[in-house]
């Protein structure tokens, strides 16, 4: 299968500290790939680089075989790379639907429509609202569409953020610790949601601490430790890899 995303020898230095060093891996189109590792291992830095929030100090990021490293984040979203954040980034006093509509680009009213209040503005706005509600339905919170995002529970806010990421019509979806703070039921729903995204042909990169979720939903897992890739492969192989166990539990002599 062709690779939708390829990370090639990517490094990121913060001053003298190497947050990422020589990281390379491929993400096949249509797969769900987990990125795991202890705190501070460089997972979020990697997500920031792939989504254009940050640029690598060295190396190449290929999206659909085009180099995209260092491109602006908004341009990458338009290109088909959407993401959620470890710390939820919603606008609290906009409704859930308005938050999702932020990332809807089709249909989108032009400046002339807005300033002249052309008749088609109302139609475009209705379509946008309907699409936003449909996306919220897809993450099972369509009923909360009119609630301000700030009033929603933690798990629901995570779902709104995923719906917003889906609104831009991504081919690659980066989920940064989506299960953080979720209860057991919510985690199970999330697992079903990710499986559903895969069925719809969306490639998912999942950064996560929750091992049950990662092992249950991923086709392949990449393990980072101190900015380096220490293992990769199928969930079962990675789980039993001695280097991974050492990174998580600490070496005997550490």
């Amino acid at each position, binding site marked *: 299968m062709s690779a939708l995303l390829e990370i090639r020898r990517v490094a990121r230095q913060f001053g003298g500290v190497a947050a990422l060093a020589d990281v390379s891996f491929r993400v096949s189109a249509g797969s769900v790939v987990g990125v795991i590792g202890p705190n501070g291992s460089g997972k979020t830095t990697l997500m920031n680089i792939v*989504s254009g*929030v940050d640029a690598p100090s060295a190396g190449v990021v290929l999206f659909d075989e085009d180099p995209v490293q260092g491109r*602006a*984040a*908004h*341009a990458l*979203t*338009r290109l088909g790379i*959407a*993401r959620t*954040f470890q710390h939820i*980034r*919603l*606008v*609290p*006093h*906009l409704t859930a639907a*308005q*938050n999702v*509509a*932020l*990332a809807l*680009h089709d249909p*989108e*009213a032009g*400046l002339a429509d*807005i*300033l002249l*209040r052309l008749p088609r*503005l109302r139609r475009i*706005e209705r379509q*946008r609202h309907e699409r936003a509600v449909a996306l919220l339905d897809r993450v099972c919170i369509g009923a909360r569409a009119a609630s301000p995002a700030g009033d929603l529970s933690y798990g629901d806010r995570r779902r709104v953020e995923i719906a*917003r*990421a889906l*609104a*831009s019509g991504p081919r690659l979806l980066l989920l940064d610790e989506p299960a953080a703070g979720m209860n057991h039921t919510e985690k199970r729903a999330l697992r079903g949601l990710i499986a559903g995204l895969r069925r719809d042909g969306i490639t998912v990169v999942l950064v996560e601490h929750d091992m049950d979720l990662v092992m249950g939903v991923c086709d392949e897992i990449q393990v980072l430790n101190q900015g380096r890739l220490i293992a990769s492969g199928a969930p079962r192989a990675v789980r039993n890899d001695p280097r991974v166990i050492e990174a998580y539990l600490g070496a005997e002599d550490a």
Partner: protein
Amino acid sequence: MIDLYYAYENVIDLCLLNAVLAFACLLLLGVNLLSLATGGLMALGAYLSIWLTMQKGWSFGPALLAATLLGSLAAAGLGALVLRLRGDYFAMATLAFTEVVRILTLNWDSVTGGALGVFGIPKLTETWQLAALLLLVVYLVWAIRNSAIGDRMRAVAEDELAVTASGHDVARLKRALFTASGAIAGLGGALAAHLNMFVAPGDFGFLRSMDAVLAPVLGGVWNLFGAAIGAAILTLLPELLRFSAQWREILIGAVTLLAVLFLPTGVASLPRRLLRGAHPGRIA
């Protein structure tokens, strides 16, 4: 009514003009930009239009258009340089722009008359023009606020990264808003210049810029008429306090401070607050 208008024509004109400028700043405050470039951009529009009408024989309409264009171009250029700056630094950089323009106008004697200013400017600005412009600006701000762009602006004020991740070029949005507010300031400057017979560099300095930002803050940023109410207060208050030059500045400062402290949503929220006070059981 007519008598009242003639007696206070100048104050009414100033209220309208300052309200227009306040809306230009309101547009920027909506995305957390505190710009003090209003004075400098006004000066560009003012001196260009004076020069065109007095020395080049242009009629008022084209001169206003030219001033609007210059204001927007200057803002676009300035924005490209300073919009990447954050918070206080952006405010300082825009203030520096206003100061640079003031010093230029102070020294470019052949066009600006230097420190003495320009005398005998034809009074071409009419009250109806200012009123029409204010209506237009209020409409435009309302239309933008009640659209997807308005939601995007609110989101930028809250969390720029969320908007960027949604696929929007936040820098471009800010440049567009800054350019639009520059156009309004340039036009406002031209209208201000032809309101009185006289213009001097000091008319378009720090205080002018400050008043334009203060008005929407005083009136309330999230109420459509807040900026107009704030501008009216800031225009009328100095007139009412004319009896004492020393107390004027102090009282204006004190009123603003009290308003910001006790009415964080602006003076425009006062009626609703009072109503709520009268009917404690009702949620307004």
